[in-house]
């Protein structure tokens, strides 16, 4: 067969195959049939060419060449058109954003990587079983204030998360919690232009308590320890933050108020001042309540709270796994609230109130249920903190001292209506991943996801914790000591079963014992200890 003809027909077959790449899968069987027909025709032509006499059937070059040349040019033109079409299509496809769905949620990223959005969420379904009968809680015949319990099943978190960035460096986070009275825990913009200096504005966790800064889904226990009672939960304000790397390494840009990646980090912020265990809402209300009459607004413009934190992981990249995971730091704050309401202090896993700032004493030292105690004057906090992670082992500890000036509207015992209070708390927790995975500040990632039919069981972490909170004794010149405890001491043991990166089952047993907080003002007794078994099913992505 003439080479030009064979080349032309082969080109047609190639073009058919090229265009097959652009056709939906459903049409591929049609194309395959066409290709088989063309191949059959080619074979027939070959046979005819082989059988026939060359001198009788081979066309002369003069007769064949122009037609085949024309066909070749046509084929070349078609090929070139397809190349241009592919170039345009590829260019268009390259402009399309990429969509991704996986353990990190649902992600959309622009083709130039300048913009991205991640959609995530968290669901926590808890069961709390108390080893005491709340209706029977009486000490000396007097009912206990806010007794522990009752048993309950609840949705602790029902969160929807939107976070991402625009123009590469302008990060944002919007976190809604439909299971909480604090509907919008986080809403901020963070401009991370350079690793050492980023500006965060909005509602976020003030950088004070180390355990509070841990992700709400990442902690070792169901609830944070007693020192978290002395740190604000969420506040509205502005923060300058940044991170530095060790010499020879490059610092990473990290968005948000916590940075566990860089060797040295700092945060300096000005916020509305949410108070101990408080959260400012986006409209400037503290702890969900409007400011008291005569009090100044807590929105920007009134008395603010300043906080600062530095944290170091000085042994990063040292090559020694026993030292690399060590981090130590200190945080502090000061403010000057004006008649700011004080949030209740609660036990960790039981979430029952054991310090009630609305239950005061009058000047005769008798219980008074009118008025209340507010924070009015200078406040300050100091929070040394540290953690250590090495392989499956994890340790975390922090100490908190929170000072504030208390004022009572009704006047306290002996006519005292102002006292200085310094509450103190500390915790130490240890955890161990039995299945050998790395223990980290941001959680545990199983080596093998739960798949029992394949003999994979996820990861198991065991943990223990001791924490204490001591209320300044001067506080009880204003507060009724039979309704608020002076001290709470808690020990907790827990187990966490990580089915995969996103799904966890946690179980804790916690026992809290109290000093004071029950009986009468003349015969103060200890509030009954609280024992609670809590279980949580959690999915976070």
């Amino acid at each position, binding site marked *: 067969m003439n080479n030009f003809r064979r080349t032309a027909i082969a080109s047609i077959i190639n073009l058919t195959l090229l265009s097959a790449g652009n056709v939906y899968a459903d049409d591929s069987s049609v194309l395959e049939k066409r290709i088989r027909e063309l191949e059959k025709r080619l074979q027939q032509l070959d046979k005819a060419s082989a059988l026939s006499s060359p001198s009788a059937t081979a066309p002369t070059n003069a007769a064949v060449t122009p037609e085949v040349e024309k066909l070749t*040019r046509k084929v*070349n*033109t078609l*090929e*070139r*058109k397809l190349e*241009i079409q592919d*170039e*345009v299509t590829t260019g268009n496809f390259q*402009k399309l954003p990429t969509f991704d769905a996986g353990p990190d949620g649902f992600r959309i990223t622009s083709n*130039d990587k*300048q913009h991205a959005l991640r959609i995530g969420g968290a669901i926590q379904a808890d069961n709390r079983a108390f080893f005491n009968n709340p209706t029977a809680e009486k000490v000396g015949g007097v009912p206990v204030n806010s007794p522990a319990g009752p048993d309950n099943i609840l949705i602790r978190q029902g969160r929807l998360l939107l976070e991402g960035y625009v123009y590469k460096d302008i990060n944002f986070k919007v976190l809604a919690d439909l299971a909480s009275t604090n509907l919008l825990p986080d809403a901020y913009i963070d401009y991370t*232009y*350079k690793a*050492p*200096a*980023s*500006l965060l504005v909005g509602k976020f966790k003030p950088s004070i308590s180390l355990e509070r800064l841990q992700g709400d889904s990442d902690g070792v226990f169901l609830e944070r320890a007693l020192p978290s009672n002395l740190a604000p939960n969420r506040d509205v304000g*502005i*923060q*300058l933050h940044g991170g530095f790397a060790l010499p020879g390494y490059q610092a990473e840009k990290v968005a948000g108020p916590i940075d566990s990646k860089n060797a040295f980090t700092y945060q*300096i912020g*000005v916020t509305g001042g949410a108070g101990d265990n408080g959260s400012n809402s986006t409209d400037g209300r503290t702890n969900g309540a409007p400011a008291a009459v005569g009090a100044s607004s807590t929105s*920007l*413009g009134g*008395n*603010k709270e*300043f906080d600062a934190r530095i944290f170091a992981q000085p042994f990063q990249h040292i090559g020694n796994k026993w030292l690399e995971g060590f981090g130590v730091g200190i945080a502090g704050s000061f403010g000057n609230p004006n008649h700011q309401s004080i949030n209740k202090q609660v036990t960790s896993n039981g979430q029952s109130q054991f310090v009630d700032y609305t239950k005061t004493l009058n000047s005769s030292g008798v219980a008074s249920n009118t008025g209340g105690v507010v924070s009015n004057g200078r406040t300050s906090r100091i929070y040394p903190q540290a953690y250590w992670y090495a392989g499956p082992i994890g340790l975390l500890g922090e100490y908190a001292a929170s000072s504030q000036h208390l004022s009572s509207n009704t006047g306290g015992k002996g006519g005292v209506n102002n006292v200085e209070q310094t509450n103190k708390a500390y915790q130490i927790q240890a955890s161990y991943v039995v299945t050998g995975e790395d223990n980290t500040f941001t959680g545990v990632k199983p080596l093998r996801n739960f798949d029992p039919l394949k003999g994979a069981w996820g990861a198991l972490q065991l943990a223990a914790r001791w924490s204490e909170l001591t209320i300044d004794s001067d506080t009880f010149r204003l507060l009724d000591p039979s309704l608020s405890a002076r001290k709470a001491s808690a020990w907790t043991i827990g187990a966490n079963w990580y089915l995969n990166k996103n799904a966890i089952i946690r179980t804790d047993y916690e026992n809290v014992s109290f000093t004071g907080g029950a009986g009468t003002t003349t015969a103060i007794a200890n509030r009954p200890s609280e024992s609670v078994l809590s279980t949580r099913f959690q999915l976070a992505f």
Partner: protein
Amino acid sequence: MNNRVKSVLALLVLGFATYTAQADEVKLLNVSYDPTRELYKDYNTVFAKYWKAKTGDDVSISQSHGGSGKQARSVLEGLEADVVTLALAYDVDQLYQKRKLIPENWQSLLPNNSSPYTSTIVLLVRKGNPLHIKDWDDLVKPGVSIVTPNPKTSGGARWNYLAAWSYALKHNNNDEAAAQAFVARLYKNAAVLDTGARGSTTTFIEREIGDVLIAWENEAYLALKEFGPEKFEIITPSISILAEPPVAVVEDVARKHGTTEVATEYLKYLYSKEAQEIIGKNFYRPTDPEIAAKYAKNFKPLELVKIDAFGGWNAAQKKHFADDGVFDQIYGSGK
């Protein structure tokens, strides 16, 4: 707000702003149209030496090339060009119209309406000119296969189109309908519409597709230089268009990069004698009268129509190349 709060807030913001104001190493990105690769390769070497001698600083220039319209869209979509050197003023002006990346009066900031060189459109045929192509009307004959880029993406393609339109107007007593019919027949003979001028050159020369390439004058001469006059010939039509590719500093980006000074000088230096020599050697028409006279013998004389004859680029773009414009009407019906 009390003074303490104000002071702390000011410190926070000042600390942040001071840190971010640090300058980086001097790098420029020149986003250009398709056929200027060789020109800017030569020019960038010369400019870097000049800048080093003048300031002691090193400057490295990266190039991006593609269809002029496509390049403008890339800059609008975020490609951080310090300067643009595109094929036509409309594409550069989009940077102002759509995103205010350049000032409104950008074209008056440099001489000759910010065009340091000009060119025109000619015809490239195969050696021996087998189809006897002499002028535009030979391109619309049956059996003639032409190669030209797509006016939707390529600036050169728009110059090609307007050159053909100019010819048709002149030879039909300025009858617009006749000109449209002529250009329709022209595009009916188009074998392939590449996205840019360099792509069309590749199609014609390397893939040997088409009988005539409608090309930038400089592209045609480069083809002769690279592939030899024994393979191709340049046919200078009786009438063509004066193509004035403009240049501009993308001030918004240059300010952000801290490169305003070097980017401005990069474009200004295109008007220097040294740069104009490079322009002439690369087969563009220099705007410096002395250098232009030196290279004039390289270019055959022809009647050149300016874009003003079409009411300027905004009017031409709107009428011919916008969606549902004349090109969409004729190319849709010509398929």
